[in-house]
């Protein structure tokens, strides 16, 4: 159970692997500033496009096939920590890239404004589809807060 995304690319896995590991390529999509070495145990740092700064530690590196890392917000000792996996599978047209992000810990949302809460409610549809939680798709879960 996790957040999942799939992207079909018209590039061979070797080239997609470059996109997800070479510094100049990573900086073009993963965040505004990216320090991520595809080396198991390597520590790094990413500044997201919204300014969020994350620390990371690289987990598994299976060249051309799989890359994983754990990341968490900088200075956020007890905050949200999650594991990201990028999985490359060859297809006829090129490569299917799967992204899986699993929260290891989630920071409690202490005070959501009613407006923010309503906005979350509207977004349930897609989030739950992501998580195959369709059976639970009943907004009262959120609106009874």
């Amino acid at each position: 159970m996790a957040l999942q995304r799939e992207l079909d690319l018209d590039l061979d896995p070797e080239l997609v692997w470059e996109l997800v590991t070479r510094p100049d390529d990573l900086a073009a999509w993963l965040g505004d500033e990216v320090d991520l070495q595809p080396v198991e145990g390597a520590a790094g740092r990413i500044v997201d496009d919204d300014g969020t700064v994350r620390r990371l530690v690289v987990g598994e590196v299976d060249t051309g096939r799989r890359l994983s890392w754990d990341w968490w917000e900088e200075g956020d000792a007890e905050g949200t920590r999650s594991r990201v996996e990028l999985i490359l599978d060859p297809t006829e047209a090129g490569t299917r890239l799967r992204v899986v992000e699993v929260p290891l810990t989630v920071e409690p949302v202490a005070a959501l404004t009613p407006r923010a809460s309503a906005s979350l409610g509207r977004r349930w549809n897609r989030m739950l589809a992501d998580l195959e939680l369709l059976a639970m798709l009943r907004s009262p879960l959120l609106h009874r807060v």
Partner: protein
Amino acid sequence: MTVPRGRELDLAGPRLEALADPTRRALLGQLAEEGPLSATRLAQGRPISRQAVAKHLQLLESVGLVTSTRSGRETRFDTCPGALRDLAGWLAAASDAWDRRLDRLAARARERAGERAQG
């Protein structure tokens, strides 16, 4: 039973695991609409025993997704919306962030494919 606030942080993974089971999601859905309800009431109309329902509820309670209150001889269960809200908040942010990243990655890949076609 309520989960102490300090434990909240450790429960995201177990909560998602608990939600991976369709029966438990259906139980949560019913509690959200009609709760609080007893295990007996929740077992009605389901192809599983009251004991099996109780086991699912126990698991959901252990990860803080439902609470139970005793009233007389009956234990009634209800959802803990706050726990789901925390997960929903994380999911909303993480989903949006990956959509943006993968849009950029797709654009970069198209550039790369174009370069190769020309070169």
